[in-house]
């Protein structure tokens, strides 16, 4: 598999680490135990197109959101995580 990192270009799978489903959002501090439980443990196991977190540890260390078909391994989109890349000075 090859992933096109927005910073580094098309690179080989061995440079990346898989984390998993990118859909769940970390709940706010006051969201309560059930919300955090869902966030930590509940995952869809999708046979098809899925949004996933990948880490380019063998390259720029960016966390990426990769849209991948789990049946064909076809990657249709790669975007950097919101906080990847340069510091948000003045943001």
């Amino acid at each position, binding site marked *: *598999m*090859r992933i096109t990192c927005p910073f580094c270009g098309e690179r*080989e*799978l061995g440079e990346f*680490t898989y*984390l998993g489903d990118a859909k769940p959002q*970390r709940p706010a*501090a006051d969201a*309560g*135990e059930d919300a*955090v*439980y869902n*966030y*930590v*443990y509940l995952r869809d196991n999708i046979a098809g197109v899925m949004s996933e*977190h990948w*880490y380019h*540890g063998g390259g720029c*260390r*960016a*966390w990426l959101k990769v849209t991948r078909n789990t049946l*064909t*391994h*076809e*990657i249709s989109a790669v975007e*950097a*995580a*919101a*906080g*990847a890349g340069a*510091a*948000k*000075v003045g*943001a």
Partner: protein
Amino acid sequence: MAGDQANRLTSGGLIDRSTALSFRFDGKNFLGFKGDTLASALVANGVKLVGRSFKYHRPRGILTAGSEEPNALVELRSGARREPNTKATTAELYEGLEAASQNRWPSLNFDVMSVNQLFSPIFVAGFYYKTFMWPAKFWEAIYEPAIRRAAGLGRAAGVSDPDHYDKAWAHCDVVIAGSGPAGLAAALAAGRSGARVILCEEDFVVGGRLLADGGAIDGLPAAEWVARAVAELAAMPDVRIMTRTSLFGVYDGGTYGAIERVNDHLPVPPEHQVRQRLWRIVAKRCVVAAGAIERPVVFAGNDTPGVMMASAMRSYINRYAATPARRIALFTNNEDGWRTAETAIAAGLQVAAVIDARPDVSPAHRSLASKGGFPVLHGSVSGVDGGKGGVRKISVSLTGGARAEVEADGLAVSGGWNPAVGLTSYHRGRPKWRDDIAAFVPDGAPPGMVAAGAANGAFGLGACLREGFEAGAAAARDVGRSGNIGSMPVADDEAFSITPLWHVAGKGKAFVDQQHDVTASDVELAQREGFQSVEHLKRYTTLGMATDQGKTSNVAGLAIMAAVSGKSIPETGTTIYRPPYVPVAIGAFAGHHRDENFHATRLTPSHHWAAEQGAVFVDTGLWKRAQWYPRAGEKDWLESVTREVKAVRNGVGFCDVSTLGKIDVHGPDAGAFLDRVYINAFSSLAVGKARYGLMLREDGIVYDDGTTSRLAEDHYFLTTTTAKAGLVMQHLEFCRQVLFPELDVQLTSVSDQWAQFSIAGPKTRDLLKEVVDPAEDLSNEGFPFMGAREVQLCGGLKARLFRISFSGEMAFEISVPARYGEAMARNLMIAGKPFGVTPYGTEALGVMRIEKGHVAGPELNGTTTAGDLGLGKMMSTKKDFIGRVMAGREALVAPNRQVVVGIKPTDKARRLRSGAHIIPKGETPGPENDQGYVTSVCFSPMLDQWIGLGLVERGRERIGEIVRAHDPLRSEDYDVELCNSVFYDPDGGRQRG
């Protein structure tokens, strides 16, 4: 006759007659020529019997002339280089080649195990599952070893492979598998367009079937056209022709696996060269021009030496000028098979008869028969009379029911051609059936791949060139190459007609899979026993599971299954295709990653100095760390470690702790960021101070710990454990980039940038004063416990100094740029000499941390909470942090959790062992009474006894209680006391002093 190349034609062939090569087969000397394979040289020397079969030890000869060979497997080379199951049909001949036949004892001619044939009823399909089932213990002791000796392939060398293997990457626009007419035409079109092309050819000569079958292309004899095409391609700077290279696999994203047999054609690879190289080729497009494989017809005795594929016979005669037989019978069901009769006659050999299963034979062939003086029999071969000496007589069932016999010493068989659909069918592709050629052809292919020529079911030479050229041009166009592709090579198409024929009924064993000895009746038996699905058929009979992966047998097997189950062939379908297409040595997959290079080795900055000191090293992850420094006269490790601990506790010692993960955290939100990843607060940490921090996973379990210092308002220096250095960096980057992108903070891994030493003991300050610039205030007031700041060393070097202690002694950790690490160690030794400075290793480090009750890896084991470790009070209630909510779950705060506690045997002389289970006094050891276990132990020089830490149910409430340490692995059971986990200097006065 053997040994004199009696079966070599006096002229012709692509062999270099000026270079004779001597070789040995089963201890006998032979001669061949450069350009031969082992198989062609054996054919030239009249050797027909080359091996015994897998289960029945039947005599076997050479069936094919390529990588699809099921029978002619040999042990090539000897000693450490002995390579079993090597195909004689692809092994290039070299001077001094040594090969031995397999599966026979004591000799190929007289094989004791051929009595297996008498017991053949027990070797039928599924015999592994049916026989030898009882008693169970007999399987391992008796049945399996006996079966393995009787039924098996070659022997592995049994010793380490002395050769090197390499792994390499290549990138191109178009990779082409196969250099026959389709592959060459594809390469020409793509290359002329300006595309970057890699052309892989498994043979050592370019040309594919053109080498054996000739023909005319663009008005030139095939050989001349090939030479011209190769010259044109060689002149293109972006075209690379790789011979001896098989494309064996297709992986995601246009990545292809290829194995290059760099030096298999030499006795030993030249110095500093590899034997094989595993390529990963990244290509935008792939043209599969892998050709087709001629298939046998299944009939009784079809495994007799001398029965050979018709196309293979042409290869031996035309390419190698070697004649497999003198009087050849041909059995064909298609037009193409007749070419062998033409070749035989052209070579001056006798044709005994052509047995054609089709109703009609063309007038041209009829006139060939009358000119050649041989009969054309309409019908099928139903039996072969012969043995280890080869074919003698052939029985023919004539159309209409009559029988005939043909005397011949060789039988050429053509059952039609199967396109090589392996590569196109990876990624779970399923080929589709084409009635007109009675074969499976690709039905689509993995992304970016297309089949052309015979691999696509286009068997005519003209069609191969056309499809190849068009595929090459299209591939180049797809990747944006638009150069002038010139004119397409042109040739005539041969006529093709076929009457499908898979199996001819007859008396005796009729083999479908010759390598695994699977017969037609095994397939029929599988059907009767309910194993009708092709996937079941494969596993029940082992059809197609041998090293040839059923290249000559799979289609026949499923066709027979289709016939007996009353289904069509497409309804029956194919099994799933999986790489590798040809066997690939494990050594090639490993490449240089073996032995001491299995993984990278990381050396600490002071490694070479430590080695000079005679340190014993221990592997911790990829690191080599000094474990202890033995001195002359010390009788064991314990004596050395005890000395090191005492030296630190009474004087001063130092230890390289550079393996800790080190991360610089910069930015205005650095403090806020650390507040969210640690359970305790860091935004409140004063500049110039250090603090111990604990991280949880989001599920509330402890993840890692370490000391983090604030060097400036917007700059923290964070340390991790050695084991988690990389993972914590990844985790923190996730927190920064994904969870908290709103924070203005940056992380920099500086683990490799800083050499870090722990200097510990009451004389630490004395030693440091010799190293640190006198202007720096190191007094308790000027540099208090948990202080952290940059200092200047004598000589001007800037260092980071932290007053932190893992040993419980007055201690500092000092960081210098990594390139000064070794000099720092040497300098500490010199400067510390007056104070008796002692280097200490990880063992002494571990002893002192256990004496102080500090938790480490055995306690941070992925199951413990902060509370379990006695650090629950560190959890801030004023902020959110990773793991906060889940850490509050009922079971994670239950009062009966196993928590860290000190443990010491009541008998002071007793050795405590980690792993021992804690059982209450008076209870029976067992899961129901198991209250925890010992996690870390050491011999404490300060307490003069073995001590340890453990995770024990309600441990901290039970200080003083005597319990049992039950250790069934070591058959030990003894009393221990639960105690305070801080064994030494419990009020911590020493480290603050």
